[in-house]
C-alpha cells in the first residue's frame, strides 16, 4: 500500500526517493553476541578454576579461549558503539561512552587474569549496554538467567511477532 502511494506521488514529479547508500546491508546490530561472549568468559573461567593442575593442556586451551571470548566482547561492543551510537543516542544516554570504555577495560581485565568476579562484572556491564541498546529501539527488556552454565542474569529483548 505504501509503495502504491509512493509511486503515485513520484509521478507528480514533486516527490522522489533518494537513496542514502551504505556499503553493506547495514542497520543490523544486536547486543546478543556480546552477551554470549561475556557469559562464555565466565564459563571458561569456571572450567579453568575447576580443572586439575595436571590437566595443563586443557587449562592452556581454556585460558586461550577465555581471552579470545573477552576480545570478541570488546569487538562486538566497539562495532555497536562506533557505528550505531549517534549524537541523538548520546544525548539521551550520556553515559554510553563511559560505559563502552568501561567494557573495554573490563574485557582486558578478564584477559589478564582469571578472577571470576572480573567476568561477572563484564557480564553486568554488557547487560547495562544491552538495556540501553534495546531502549534506543523502543524494545523493552527483561533479565533472566541464561539457560546454560554459568546461569548468570542476562538482558533479553522482549520481542513480539
Amino acid at each position, binding site marked *: 500500500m*505504501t*509503495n502504491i502511494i*509512493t509511486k503515485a506521488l513520484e509521478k*507528480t*514529479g*514533486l*516527490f*522522489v*526517493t*533518494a*537513496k*542514502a*547508500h*551504505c*556499503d*553493506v*546491508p*547495514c*542497520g543490523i546490530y544486536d547486543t546478543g553476541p556480546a552477551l554470549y561472549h561475556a557469559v562464555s568468559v565466565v564459563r571458561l573461567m569456571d572450567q579453568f578454576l575447576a580443572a586439575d593442575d595436571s590437566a595443563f593442556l586443557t587449562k592452556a586451551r581454556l585460558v586461550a579461549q577465555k581471552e579470545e571470548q573477552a576480545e570478541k566482547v570488546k569487538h562486538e561492543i566497539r562495532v555497536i558503539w*562506533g*557505528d550505531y551510537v*549517534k*549524537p*541523538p543516542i548520546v544525548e539521551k544516554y550520556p553515559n554510553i561512552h563511559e560505559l563502552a570504555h568501561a567494557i573495554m577495560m573490563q574485557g582486558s581485565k578478564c584477559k589478564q587474569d582469571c578472577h571470576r568476579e572480573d567476568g561477572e562484572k563484564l557480564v553486568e556491564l554488557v547487560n547495562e549496554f544491552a538495556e540501553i541498546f534495546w531502549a534506543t529501539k523502543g524494545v523493552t527488556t527483561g533479565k533472566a538467567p541464561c539457560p546454560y552454565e554459568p546461569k548468570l542474569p542476562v538482558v533479553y529483548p522482549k520481542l513480539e511477532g
Partner: protein
Amino acid sequence: MFGFKIARIDGRSMEPMLVDGSFALFRRRYRREQGEVILVNHKEFGLIVKQVADIAPNGEMVLAGLSPESTSTERLGRVSREQVQGTLVAPIPLLRWRRTRH
C-alpha cells in the same frame, strides 16, 4: 513543481541529519559549495543524497555520506554539475515513512 522537491530518504548513510524513512525538502537551484547536501543522479547508484565533501579544480564534486557506514567517497567517485537534482533546504520533521527494507 515550484522549484522544490520532497525526497524520501532510503538508507542510513546520511544519519543523523537525514534519518532512514524520513522526508526532506530540496530546492532545484544549486549552489556549488562544500558542505551542501545534494540530490544527485548517480551513474551507478541512481538518485542518491550525499554531502559535498570537496570541489575539484574542474568543478566536479566529491561526495561523502555522514555515517561511517556510508558507501565510501572513493566508490561514489566525482559528479558533475549536470547530475545535481537539488540542494537540501531542510529535513521535514515528524514525518516518517515506515522502513521498507535493509
